């Protein structure tokens, strides 16, 4: 199995929103960041991957198996962390341990306990008394305490302070030391993803804008700053999006398509996402006028 996750032409139609022809592929042993603004379709995509909702078109393969045929056995090897903690509030870490032991065939009680120690989670405190960070850490401990080969995280780090996010990032990096382990993480806090992701997939209004290796993206794009006059001379094909101020223009460009002696700075994934998003907003405005 070379791909931990593969979506082929996946579509899902709702009344006000559609996911259109989503294609993405996560090679085993890598981390893919799934970015997009709120409402872009990230959670819908993840729900489709887990077969929580039914797709209208396309095929989905999780750890090499078709997600509508073999999913129950594959789920033994998937660890899922979602934004809300789904354990009933009156449970404790120890009761969670007992319950999950009765659900997962590969549940490792000792591993779970050592994560609890590492995260300083008391065994007998009720979940309703946990802080948000603690709930998240409990979910992560649970996701890692059975034979997980693919971790799927949906906005799992929202609302957590940078210290905890950093702690969790370390745990993920440790997880990925094993080449057969992969991570699929959706977030709109891009700074977390930017450092360690191998691939970035950007979804906007239900369609995939790009799905590339992060290094490629950062090599391909750059931020160009110049006067409005100079900007009008630039090949429009090179420009992804731009921002005009009173003192000049700032644009995201494809470095190779820009001719001439311009200063192009390194960009970030967040900027790429912003400029792409703005560009579609401008197109909407153009259409209206």
């Amino acid at each position, binding site marked *: 199995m070379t791909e931990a996750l593969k979506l082929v032409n996946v579509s899902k139609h709702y009344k006000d929103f559609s996911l259109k022809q989503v294609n993405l592929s996560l090679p085993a042993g890598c*981390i893919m960041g799934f970015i997009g603004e709120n409402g872009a379709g990230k959670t819908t995509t993840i729900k489709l991957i887990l077969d929580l909702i039914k797709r209208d078109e396309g095929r989905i393969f999780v750890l090499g198996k078709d997600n509508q045929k073999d999913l129950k056995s594959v789920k033994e090897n998937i660890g899922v962390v979602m934004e809300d903690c789904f354990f009933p509030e009156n449970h404790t870490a120890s009761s969670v341990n007992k319950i999950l032991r009765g659900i997962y065939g590969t549940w490792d009680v000792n591993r779970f306990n050592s994560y609890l120690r590492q995260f300083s989670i008391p065994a007998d405190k009720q979940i309703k008394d946990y802080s948000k960070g603690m709930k998240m850490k409990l979910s992560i401990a649970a996701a890692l305490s059975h034979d997980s080969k693919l971790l799927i995280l949906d906005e799992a780090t929202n609302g957590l302070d940078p210290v905890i996010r950093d702690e969790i990032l370390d745990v993920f990096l440790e997880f990925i*030391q094993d080449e057969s382990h992969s991570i699929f993480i959706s977030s709109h806090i891009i700074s977390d993803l930017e*450092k360690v992701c191998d691939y970035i997939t950007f979804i906007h209004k239900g369609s995939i804008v790009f799905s590339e290796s992060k290094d490629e993206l950062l*090599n391909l794009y750059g931020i160009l700053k110049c006067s409005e006059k100079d900007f009008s001379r630039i090949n429009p094909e090179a420009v992804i999006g731009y921002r005009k101020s009173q003192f000049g223009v700032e644009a995201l460009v494809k470095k190779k398509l820009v001719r001439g002696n311009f200063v192009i700075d390194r960009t970030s994934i967040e900027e790429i996402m912003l400029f792409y998003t703005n560009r579609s907003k401008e197109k909407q405005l153009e259409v209206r006028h």
Partner: protein
Amino acid sequence: MDIIISNSSGQPIYEQIATQIKNLIISGELKEGDALPSMRLLAKELRISVITTKRAYEELEREGFITSVTGKGSFVAAKNVDLIREHQLREIEEHMKKIVEKSIACGLTLDELIEMLKLFYEGE
């Protein structure tokens, strides 16, 4: 072994890593047969993508500085004296290019430049 990378330097990160490891090998700090950290471990410790470290190692292997054995890892290759010399010559050329550019920019003649060079060389 220390690897320090900078996000603000214009040089791509994989190149920075490759260059630093090369220098460690040339200077002798890394000896023939020494094991390099695994690509994944390096990525984790530096907090960068595994693809970046992989690319750095691939370049090092391509240029003959290291050899990778699947399942075992990457090791410093036998010191290829010619290779190293070539590498050092290339670096000297780079420096020379810069010196010439600056000299021309501030109006230094070739003879004046050679004089300065003699001073430095003979001084060593």
